[in-house]
């Protein structure tokens, strides 16, 4: 069986997503996130090319501009402002959580066999595998990391997973919905970025595991 280009690209994005888990350096996390989202934008463009739905090109461009260029740059800026370089003491050591993520890729391969494909059975199978694995990756990121910035990255990865699932299974939603989602993500990230400043100001750290402790 040979891989279609879009299947190969979506598996590539899943693999790049898993590589985010491997390090606690936030800068490296963000550049892996950039590559991971670039692969997703390429999947979108490729599906637009196959299905001849021109609005998907616009969506791919939107994903590229907002999620590949703007959001990582914005988060890099936030990182510099709140002055945290790395995510100290993750709950599970970074290498271990990456290997866990790789096993989740295998698990989602088995799981996605149970899901009937929406658009013609076989060709969306690996797409849903990749999407599900990205979802698991995001969940792992949010569960195992302490820094609030990693939580934002985890949220973005989960969002990418849901987006990839929608794109590969339905070959794209209406333009308005996609644009609304992109705007939502943009606003979400900006608000959480601002929230980070406030957390940093009142707690002097961005460790989410200690936010439950009351402070006077």
């Amino acid at each position: 069986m040979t891989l279609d280009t879009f299947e190969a690209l979506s598996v590539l994005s899943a693999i790049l997503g898993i590589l985010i888990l491997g390090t606690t350096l936030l800068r490296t996390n963000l550049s892996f996130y950039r590559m991971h989202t670039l692969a997703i934008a390429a999947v979108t463009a490729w599906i637009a090319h196959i299905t001849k739905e021109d609005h998907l090109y616009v969506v791919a461009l939107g994903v590229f501009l907002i999620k590949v260029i703007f959001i990582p740059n914005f988060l890099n800026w936030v990182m510099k402002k709140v002055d945290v370089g790395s995510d100290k003491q993750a709950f599970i050591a970074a290498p271990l959580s990456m290997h866990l993520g790789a096993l989740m890729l295998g698990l989602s391969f088995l799981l996605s066999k149970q899901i009937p494909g929406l658009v013609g059975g076989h060709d969306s199978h690996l797409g849903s595998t990749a999407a599900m694995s990205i979802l698991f990756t995001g969940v792992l990121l949010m569960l195992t990391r302490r820094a609030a910035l990693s939580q934002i990255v985890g949220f973005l990865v989960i969002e990418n997973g849901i987006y990839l699932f929608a794109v590969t299974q339905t070959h794209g939603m209406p333009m308005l919905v996609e644009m609304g989602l992109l705007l939502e993500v943009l606003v979400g990230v900006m608000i959480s970025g601002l929230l980070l400043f406030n957390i940093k100001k009142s707690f002097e750290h961005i460790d989410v595991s200690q936010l439950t402790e009351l402070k006077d």
Partner: protein
Amino acid sequence: MESLLTDLNRQEWLRAGAFFFSLILMPPLTVGIIRKTKARFQNRIGAPIFQPFYDLTKLLKKDETISNHVSWIFRSAPSINLSLLFIVACLAPWTTLHPFGIPGDLFLLIYLLAFSRFFTVLSALDAGSAFGGFGASREVTLALLVEPAIMLSLASLGVTAGTSDLTTVFSFENVKLQSQTGLWFIAGCGLFLSSLVELSRMPADDPTTHLELTMVHEAMILENSATNLALAELTHFVKIVVLLGISSQCFLHSLPWVWHASEITRALASIGGVFFMAAFIAVIESVAVKLRWTKLPEFIAYSVAMSIFCVLIALSRGTN
């Protein structure tokens, strides 16, 4: 006998000749290329590409100084290692020139490499210097971490091909492996990352430094001099070529046009691949820094993750 020689046609003999020629010439040349590229990156002219040859001949002429306390192990380990590495080079498919179709089992190859490491470690401990001791302990720790990565990526190629003989796996003839671009590419990445560690190159160990606290490979051959040092260095050069050759073969197999190319093109591409990887290592060493010892498992985890991806791909082929 006469008919046998003519039967094993001239092409095969030509191939064998080219193989041994490149086996002798390529290891120092590859190191020369690495050093030259690094020098150019640092805005220096750098030593000529053939400098490693001159260094080796200079070392062979020198008088040897050895400690009074060493045993025969220290004296014989470099020659044992060099012969082991030549055996590995003859078995491993590091170029397409591989002569006579000698079968090379992947487990045999990995453990021959481990065997040569065993003798290096033994000779480092034998000299009784403190640096040799901790160089050895670091080398063994790294080997322990890297071994699963190399093993799993080669084994997943073997599982897909249905054989553990690397000569068949890397022969450009196996139909099952022909369109597995992703598997080859990821296996290549995994093997490349782990060979960086295995060869004591930059993220794991700085080959140019002689700062005792950080060295790994250099600390182990610190006590060697003259002929022994030349043999140890040559062993390391051969190891560089073999490991880089295997990973560049993986990358070449992931390119569809190589599968349809003629034999000569493939041979040239595989030799060029090794030199390209060498230059790439030099680029990495120019832009990256050596990782702190405690950060190293995180780096190795990436190569292990790549090999896990390989295993997943190989297994998912089985279920389809």
